[in-house]
């Protein structure tokens, strides 16, 4: 019996499947971008907490990083999805469970919080590579601790850690595929849908792979521009 596989690359653009892939891509980008904004903002904050003079803040920063980076993202996503709403009490949790697109919000927050723990570690490494006298030089001009971080130390450290941040930015988009496990119709989810509908999963998955690849290359190109623009003048080797 001839079980030869008939390729049908048309599923990648034929109605409605092409539309499904596009919608999936849209959601992947939206979740990735939103999660990245959370990760960057929170990561910088947590990374800064870890080196302040206040023990309690330092402790909080360390606890955050260790908890979030040591639990698999998939488990965290399940936790936020199933248990997260209950953290707000019974009445509120019932309301939260009725929010439409809750799984999308949970993916954004879950991936954002997790990635923040990784960004925080890079930020901390950036701070550590800046010498003590540099901090003291800022303070010696009369600037406060907050001004010191805001205007000198954080902008300086971020420029030092652009390469690892590029990797994190890429990983955020790749991690959005995990959102399909809580029913988010992002790109990977859609390629599965096409398979279910047409039995042409091979083409659909290959298509999704290429789309991820193009997305990733775009991110890298974008980060190269950022790096060129912000690289510290004259620093060797970069």
């Amino acid at each position: 019996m001839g079980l030869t596989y008939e390729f049908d690359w048309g599923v990648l653009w034929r109605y409605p499947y092409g539309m499904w892939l596009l919608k999936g891509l849209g959601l992947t980008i939206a979740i990735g971008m939103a999660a990245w904004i959370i990760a960057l903002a929170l990561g910088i904050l947590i990374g800064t907490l870890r080196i302040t003079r206040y023990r309690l803040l330092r402790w909080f920063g360390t606890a955050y990083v260790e908890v979030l980076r040591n639990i698999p993202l998939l488990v965290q996503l399940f936790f936020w999805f199933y248990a997260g709403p209950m953290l707000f009490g019974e009445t509120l949790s019932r309301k939260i469970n009725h929010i439409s697109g809750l799984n999308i919000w949970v993916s954004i927050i879950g991936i954002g919080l997790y990635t923040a723990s990784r960004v925080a570690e890079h930020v901390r490494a950036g701070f550590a590579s800046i010498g003590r006298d540099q901090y003291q030089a800022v303070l010696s001009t009369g600037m406060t601790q907050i001004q010191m971080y805001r205007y000198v130390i954080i902008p300086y450290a971020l420029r030092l850690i652009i390469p690892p941040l590029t990797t994190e930015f890429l990983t955020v988009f790749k991690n959005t595929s995990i959102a399909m496990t809580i029913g988010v119709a992002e790109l990977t989810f859609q390629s599965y849908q096409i398979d279910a509908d047409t039995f042409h999963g091979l083409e659909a998955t290959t298509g999704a792979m290429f789309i991820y690849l193009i997305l990733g290359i775009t991110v890298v190109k974008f980060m190269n521009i950022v790096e060129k623009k912000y690289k510290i003048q004259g620093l060797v080797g970069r």
Partner: protein
Amino acid sequence: MIEIKKLNKWFGDFQVLVDVDEVIERGQTVVICGPSGSGKSTLLRCINGLEPFQKGDVTVDGVSVADPKTNLYKLREKIGMVFQRFELYPHMTALQNITLAPMKVRKWSRRKAEEKARQLLERVGIPDKADVYPANLSGGQQQRVAIARALAMEPDYMMFDEPTSALDPEMIKEVLDVMIDLAKGGMTMLCVTHEMGFAREVADEILFMDHGRIVERGTYEGFFNNPKTDRAKEFLAQILD
């Protein structure tokens, strides 16, 4: 006036400063020298509160550094500091380095801050380097930008922590000339340096530190021609080598 009264400081069990007493009057230039590890840098950092200390006190115009109610940020506004390795902000141009604190701390307009910064760059002899990044400046130029950055806050006091010891010999003079100019212009200065030519020209007093103590003090002539302790004699012999 800066008064240092029975200042004692420990890093853990290790005592870095032992009963340091000193008075620096307005307009004076005081040079501090001594072997590496004798506590010179730490002393400067105690004066502007960058390092806490355990005993004694420092007062700047009557304001106590040890008093927990003292606003140290406010205090530092009037004490400029220059570091051995310049410590410019590498992601900012020379001009931005100089205008940052006046704009953020003193709330000056950008225009006013830039005008002041350009005057200062002129004064330290590099008016054409305003838009250059630190990495593209020579060491001597960087240190002059750092001096301009400190002066931009219009401080009443200036502290220098070995400002020329990271410089190539040919650049030392351009920095010292700026410092001499400042001292002669009436700035109150506290300089950690081993540049004895500088000390001869402008120092009102020289302090020699060893193991956290001021073991000798006097005028340039007194110290240089007639050191009393063996440690000072050895030290002078070494730096004159």
